[in-house]
């Protein structure tokens, strides 16, 4: 077997194992949440008998281990269960929210990733001069400001004062693609600003690292243009760390945007998760946790594989 395929297969297996471990953590975590599902569903009017009935109905009287394996078994067959609070099928309800979150994340990524890399290249090209300083200062500032504050500042100027963009990012069925894009312009802007700095600075640092190498000096002595050296010789060798940081930021765009979703009232996964945590709707919380874990592990897996493929030493081992 080709060593690359073997390496990728190994990574995949490790990823699955990690996901399984995450499922255990999620299950244990939701079990030790304070409060009782039956109690929070029935409220103050609960009687001991109705509590016992509901617990039996929800299977809460079974030992935790039994419940874990029946839950895991369901997931293997694609059954995430039903929400306790309103009886909706979780996969259906969550599918829509996940779609919304993915939409927001991908629009933000499509803008943020190329701009971060291009800005990084420019910063290296003009290292130590004013374009580098300007880019670094601005991106450092946007990274340092908490995202909700960034959101509120953007709302104040762009929505309330100038009225260019809507302060609410509510999207719903029946909107055209253009209307949806316009609706999410503000959260996209904030997300781009938040992730741009990290990726751009990492790109800059990785390339600068490579710029010390002997072959870059050779290229310079050959008389190549500075930008050609960076794009042709330095960047391909800096891909591995860049891809890693890009993937971490993409994962953040999916799993870490709860605050931004709340500020702009965007109907994504974050809001969905928060609502169900407060209602002790454990199956939904578990399903959300698992999806988040899968996204995170999956993207990191992609990062690993890409850096293996980008490295000739790993691609052609002796």
């Amino acid at each position, binding site marked *: 077997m080709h060593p690359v395929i073997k390496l990728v297969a190994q990574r995949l297996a490790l990823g699955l194992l990690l996901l399984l471990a995450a499922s255990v953590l999620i299950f244990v975590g939701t079990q030790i949440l304070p409060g009782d599902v039956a109690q929070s569903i029935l409220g103050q009017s609960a009687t001991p008998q109705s509590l016992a009935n509901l617990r039996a109905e929800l299977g809460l009287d079974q030992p935790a281990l039994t419940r874990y394996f029946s839950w895991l078994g369901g997931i293997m067959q694609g059954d995430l269960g039903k929400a306790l609070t309103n009886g909706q099928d979780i996969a259906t309800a969550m599918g829509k929210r996940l779609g919304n979150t993915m939409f927001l994340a991908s629009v933000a990524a499509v803008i943020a990733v190329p701009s971060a890399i291009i800005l990084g290249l420019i910063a290296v090209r003009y290292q130590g001069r004013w374009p580098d300083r300007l880019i670094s200062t601005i991106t450092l500032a946007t990274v340092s400001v908490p995202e909700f504050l960034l959101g509120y500042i953007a709302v104040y100027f762009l929505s309330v004062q100038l009225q260019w963009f809507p302060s609410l990012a509510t999207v719903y069925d029946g909107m055209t693609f253009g209307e949806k894009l316009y609706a999410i312009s503000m959260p996209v802007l904030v997300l781009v600003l938040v992730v741009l700095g990290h990726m751009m600075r990492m790109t800059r640092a990785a390339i600068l690292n490579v710029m010390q190498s002997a072959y870059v000096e050779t290229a310079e002595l050959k008389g190549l243009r500075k930008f050609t050296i960076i794009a042709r010789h330095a960047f391909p060798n800096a891909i591995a760390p860049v891809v890693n940081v890009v993937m971490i930021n993409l994962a953040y765009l999916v799993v870490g945007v709860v605050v931004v979703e*709340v500020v*702009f009232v965007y109907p994504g996964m974050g809001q969905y998760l928060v609502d169900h945590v407060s209602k002790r709707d454990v199956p939904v919380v578990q399903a959300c946790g698992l999806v988040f874990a899968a996204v995170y592990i999956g993207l990191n897996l992609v990062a690993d594989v890409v850096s293996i493929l980008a490295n000739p030493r790993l691609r052609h081992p002796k």
Partner: protein
Amino acid sequence: MKDDLAKLIDRIDAGRLSRRGFMGGAAAIGALATMGAPAFAAGEPKKGGILKMGISGGETTDTLDPGLSDSPVPFNVIKQWGDTIVNITADGGINPNLAESMSSNAEGTEWTFNIREGVKFHNGADMTANDVMQTYLRHSNEDSKSGALGIMKGISGMKVEGNAVVITLETGNADLPYLLSDYHLVIQPNGGFDDPNAAIGTGPYKVTSAEPGVRFAFEKNAEDWNTARGHYDGVEILVINDATAKTSALQSGLVHMINRVEPKVAKLLDRAPNVTVENVSGRGHYVFIMHTNTAPFDNKDLRLALKYAINRQEMVDKILDGYGGVGNDTPINAAYPLFDETLEQRTYDPVKAAEHYKASGHDGSPIELIVADTAFPGAVDAAALFQQSAKAAGIPLEIKRVPDDGYWSDVWNVKPFCASYWGGRPVQDQMYSTAYLSTADWNDTKYNNPEFDALLLEARAETDTVKRKELYSKLAHILNEDGGVICPMFNDFVEAHVDDIMGWEKLPNGEMMDGFASSMTWLA
């Protein structure tokens, strides 16, 4: 008077007073009579437009079943598509709605409601007396999870006679029509037994799209039986739980009106151009509750010491920013019919507090007050103010701040001394019966006073309003002196709308004009 009038006119110039506010203020200082023809005659409602409401207090887990609704968004949604058989007017009277008229026997134990004919549901079916009875059955049967179950408990029998519904009660209740105005009790086809989530009713707007926690859309019900309401072509309710997002949506014109403006920002928001803040004193109140059956709160002197040790006016000024009124250690204020205005207002008195504290023989150890942000807006700050004012009277309070999560299941109604709130009820009987009757589930002060219970039941069946008022006066005096509730303040409903919204009225029964904002207002 002249100065007052000048002040009002100044405020109009400054754009801070609505036309209605001016009329009210001018009437109060007796100026209208001298002004000749009113220069601000109310215009005819204009038809058309889509009303957008930004409402906080909605979750993904909400359903359309009126029985299971207990938060602001479901409340406002129900008010679009549903009708109760009666409504409560601004001055606490009863307005017939789906019932054309009503009557009771002398003891108040048998009530007859004549149901309006010719009213159609959104699905085209006729609304009948049987639908009314089935609705009440669904909310009152044994395994009902309805939020209205508590108020339906006293019903012992129902029957349909022609186009009338006859309701028999276990004990007389002169307030039954008020109870039936509860928003859970909107009439559904066959009572909603077939499909409780269908959201089919007789209201001014039909549901066209429902995404819980996100957005609800409605279109005008063209066959509405009541042509005097519902001036918009459609209504949208956007769920906006974040307070800042809500106010900025209003300011940027994305929504026309919002609910629950925080007192802290209300004055600032009122200064914004094109926005009017509305407030109406409601029956909702914030409380500190002591379990009267648990030491040290089982001692009346200690309870009185704490009641004298709280500075009510300071709380209204600092916690509510003036958007509210002081409480008097009863759950009742002037917004209730038959309010007893003779009860003396208790004020902050550290000397009396110290006397009662001494008389209670308390050992001087810190008294633990449990509080969380969710108890009421500003609860933690209010507890700190309470601690300071009590300290001046030599009473040591220890504040224990706990997380919001689990507060309503693990602290409220469980721990002996904590902060809480009440939304108020339409009538005194219902408020007392929900929270102060010794047998009530939500008797959160564990108050057990046979004399109080007996008076309450007597008042409930009393149909003579003069005698009834006397009985309620006695109840208020007992609770004020002996009860376990410290009520520092009644909070206003504070809401805001853009200036294009016309016809806003002050209805103290619920937020957003008791949910009738979309029925009664119109776009200029």
